[in-house]
């Protein structure tokens, strides 16, 4: 009787393993290995190079040293529309502190249509044309809007899916701006000297220093 139970358990585990591996293989066959799944906080944000609406190539790594709000959206997504004026306001409010908002349009529409829509929404930040690859790299972004908050050193501070309140977004922006930044390529003494020169030239305290 005990032996039968053991055989049954072994068979059950084998079937589960087959189901799980089948599902994984199906996903990887369709999309390649998913890179950002589960808890993504602290994970390095995958770099990308995407065309902007004006035809330039924009890389995430171009913004190293800035806090990046990376918003996946589409023109056919009504909840995405609600957030866009908020992002424009936040770009205006926190741009001087180092915030860069990037919109990634996951859309089949023509760039001119996307540009017109973005303009009507009051968008004052860069809009990039998304691809399946960038969606896959960011964990198969299917649910729009999805927003990643990326610290100045390129690590992900937070990921938010679905429409949230403006306060939640602003809190995430502040958290991202204040996330620990460890410049990898510039020695601290050099960064300090550059900062002192900038302060001396402008005669003002850098924003954020008094916070």
């Amino acid at each position, binding site marked *: 009787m005990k032996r039968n139970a053991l055989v049954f*358990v072994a068979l059950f585990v084998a*079937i589960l393993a087959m189901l799980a591996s089948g599902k994984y293989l199906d996903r990887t066959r369709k999309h390649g290995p998913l890179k950002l799944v589960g808890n993504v906080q602290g994970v390095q944000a995958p770099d990308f190079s995407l065309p902007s609406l004006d035809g330039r190539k924009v890389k995430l790594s171009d913004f190293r040293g800035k806090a990046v709000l990376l918003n996946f959206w589409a023109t056919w997504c*009504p*909840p995405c529309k609600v957030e866009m004026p908020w992002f424009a306001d936040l770009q205006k409010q926190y741009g001087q502190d180092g915030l860069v908002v990037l919109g990634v349009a996951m859309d089949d529409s023509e760039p001119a249509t996307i540009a017109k829509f973005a303009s009507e929404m009051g968008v004052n930040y860069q809009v990039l044309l998304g691809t399946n690859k960038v969606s896959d790299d960011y964990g198969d972004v299917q649910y*729009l809007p999805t927003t990643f908050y990326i610290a100045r050193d390129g690590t992900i501070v937070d990921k938010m899916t679905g429409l949230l309140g403006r306060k939640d977004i602003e809190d995430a922006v502040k958290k991202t701006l204040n996330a620990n930044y460890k410049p990898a390529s510039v020695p601290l003494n050099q960064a300090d000297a550059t900062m002192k020169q900038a302060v001396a030239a402008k005669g003002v305290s850098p924003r954020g220093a008094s916070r």
Partner: protein
Amino acid sequence: MRRGLALPLAMLLFTGVLLAQGFGDKPPVAVAPIGNVQMKAGASKSVSLDFRIGSEFHINSHVPKSPLLIPTVLKLSGPEQVTIADLKYPAGQDMSFSFSPDEKLSVYSGDFTIDAVVKAGTAAGTYPVKGELRFQACDHSACFPPRSIPVQFQVTVVK
């Protein structure tokens, strides 16, 4: 005997839960099975195709209020002996949602039916009609990319 059944039953339940999780990416719209449609040669018949939308979702109607929104569209085709003469979509419901309370969207939610007017040719036989329903679904806070589900039925033409 009860103890003997407990283990298989628990495992069956567990498998069911796992399978349900595995199907989490299934489309939020399903089509009801369509029986074999019997028709006389040369006749026309309206075939009702019933769809059900998951309880938390809505999809755009066939005529959404903005050209940027993706309409629900059914495409069907059959062999030469069966033609789809017309598709009758239901009117959308004008609804507003928490993400934009001041804006009305024309949507389908719950169950809806599209009537396909099928015209039979003169040759008797059983013919497949195949196609897909394309839709774009949202819930109260987010949207999914457009998806399609297969729709098919058989038409038997008799003399």
